[in-house]
């Protein structure tokens, strides 16, 4: 993707844009740290001005004035409707008020299970990562969970995650319900630098929706440790307009802390 389009936008801008497109006006989204915050903010500044953005530390319904560094800082309730508590927003999430949960992921498997805890053995990890944070909660409770996993490769798209931090469809159809997770929840979309994916209704396996401009089907297959379901029909992901790129660069992330420079 970089080769064909590097002149116009970078990968992280594309991820943020693709994430923003999934969010609808008049719905609620629970955003995690990093790119999900940019996606929510871009949606709010373009097609979804009344998107209800909720942060796990207690910020509810802000009109974000600048990109937060933390999901708890004051801007997460700037001109918002409430500055409340984690108990309040997580309870709302558990009770069913959250349409979209928006997460990042280090390792993802075919069922959309996410690992953000450790690489290698839990007792003696090769790399210790931060852990669940609010991700396990958001993916357990939100009606639809969107995952942004920037660097799709055989190392990050794995047949089995080293540690199942955050639930996708667990071991397949019916597994979430059997475990006791709320009904009609689960991963909805996965966005990588190569493509946009959904999940097959029957098998719950990850399924291609659209290839990003300039990406081949071979690239998608070569950069996965499991078989992605390829339907007969798939499309090409839309690219951001000049105006959307300008909003991303000038209004949302002028220092380039998340989208780079």
């Amino acid at each position, binding site marked *: 993707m970089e080769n064909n389009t590097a002149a116009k936008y970078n990968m992280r801008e594309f991820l943020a844009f693709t994430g923003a497109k999934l969010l609808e006006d008049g719905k609620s989204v629970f955003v995690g740290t990093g790119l999900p915050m940019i996606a929510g903010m871009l949606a709010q500044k373009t097609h979804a001005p009344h998107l209800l953005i909720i942060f796990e530390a207690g910020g509810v319904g802000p009109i974000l004035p600048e990109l937060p560094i933390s999901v708890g800082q004051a801007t997460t309730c700037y001109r918002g409707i409430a500055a409340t508590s984690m108990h309040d927003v997580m309870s709302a999430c558990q009770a069913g008020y959250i349409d979209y949960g928006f997460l990042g992921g280090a390792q993802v498997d075919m069922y959309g299970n996410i690992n953000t805890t450790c690489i290698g053995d839990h007792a003696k990890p090769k790399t210790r990562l*931060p852990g669940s944070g609010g991700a396990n909660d958001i993916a357990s409770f939100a009606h639809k969970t969107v995952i942004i996993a920037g660097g799709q490769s055989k190392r990050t798209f794995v047949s089995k995650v080293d540690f199942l*931090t955050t639930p996708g469809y667990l071991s397949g159809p019916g597994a979430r319900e059997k475990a006791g997770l709320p009904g009609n929840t689960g991963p909805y979309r996965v966005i990588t630098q190569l493509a946009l994916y959904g999940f097959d209704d029957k098998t719950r396996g990850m399924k291609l929706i659209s290839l990003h401009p300039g990406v081949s089907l071979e690239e998608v297959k070569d950069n996965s440790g499991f078989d992605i379901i390829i339907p007969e029909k798939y499309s090409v992901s839309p690219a951001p307009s000049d105006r959307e790129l300008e909003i991303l660069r000038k209004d949302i992330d002028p220092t380039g802390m998340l989208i780079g420079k």
Partner: protein
Amino acid sequence: MEVLHEGLGELVGWHDPDENREFVLHNKSRALKDKTMTASEAVASFVKNGDFIASGGFGHIRVSMNIIYEIIRQRKRNLTMAGKTAVHDLDLLVGNGCVNKVEVAYSFGHEVRGLSPASRRMVESGRCKVIGEISNAGYQWRFLAGMMGLPFIPSRNLLGTDTGKYSACKVVTDPFSGKPINLIPAAYPDVAFIHVHRCDIYGNCQIDGIMVEDFELARCARKLIITTEEIIDNEEIRREPWHTAIPFYVVDGVVEQPFGSHPCELHGKYFFDEEHIAEWLSLSKTDEGVQAYAEKYIFGVNDFPDYLELCGGIRKMEFLVKREAMRVPLVTPWRK
């Protein structure tokens, strides 16, 4: 109730609710008395080696950093810490050898700023042990169960995952719905420290902005140190009692310290000191760097006001106040 799964995580900070009621009866005074003291006195009186500790706020937000630095200065050891989105506080305490056990919801990272070199190194080299995993809501609900005086609280997160498997939770069959339900054990930290915008000498506190989980944490902690930007008159509390976030009877000590959360943010008051955080992230890449930081900013100064001077004093604090009000642009010196 049928127990379906039992988590492998170590159960820390749990007490039988009757035992905790006894503790409250004999140790938490309902008398209105002046609790003001210095940070040094508060840590010496209330933090013991081996304690299970919890820090208020969230990540780099409204953290009682003056108590964190004082714990390091007094060289407390073998502490277990609640990793309830514990970020800068935990990183410093683990890096400096004060905390060697963590129950993790979110730790060893600095959100957008990247991972924590110091505490990750301590975990990956086996010098700090992760005794259990949990999620942010999970940790928060440990405190909720504690504040309610209950042994556990049911929840629908953590189910079906390794986070649940490595937690101290148990999964049972819900006798009402018949579905599996997760039981989160109560937590009663030995000591918690929470930074607030203002409180009176008795410990009645007001907090602006988000509460995060401090409403619950304040009420379940066995000992509670409040640090505050300013002490206000009890009359101000009584004029607007609906603004009281934490009542005096759960508070054990009150420490007045303006800018007491630096380099963390305080909603509506001052922004993160990104330059200082970047210095820590850079220095903490090696054990020697962690030591150099501690020598300069903790052992090399007498107290928190001296530390603030070293960090740039009034000029820096004025800048952080302006940044919080978005009157000056954001700087991100930790960005690669």
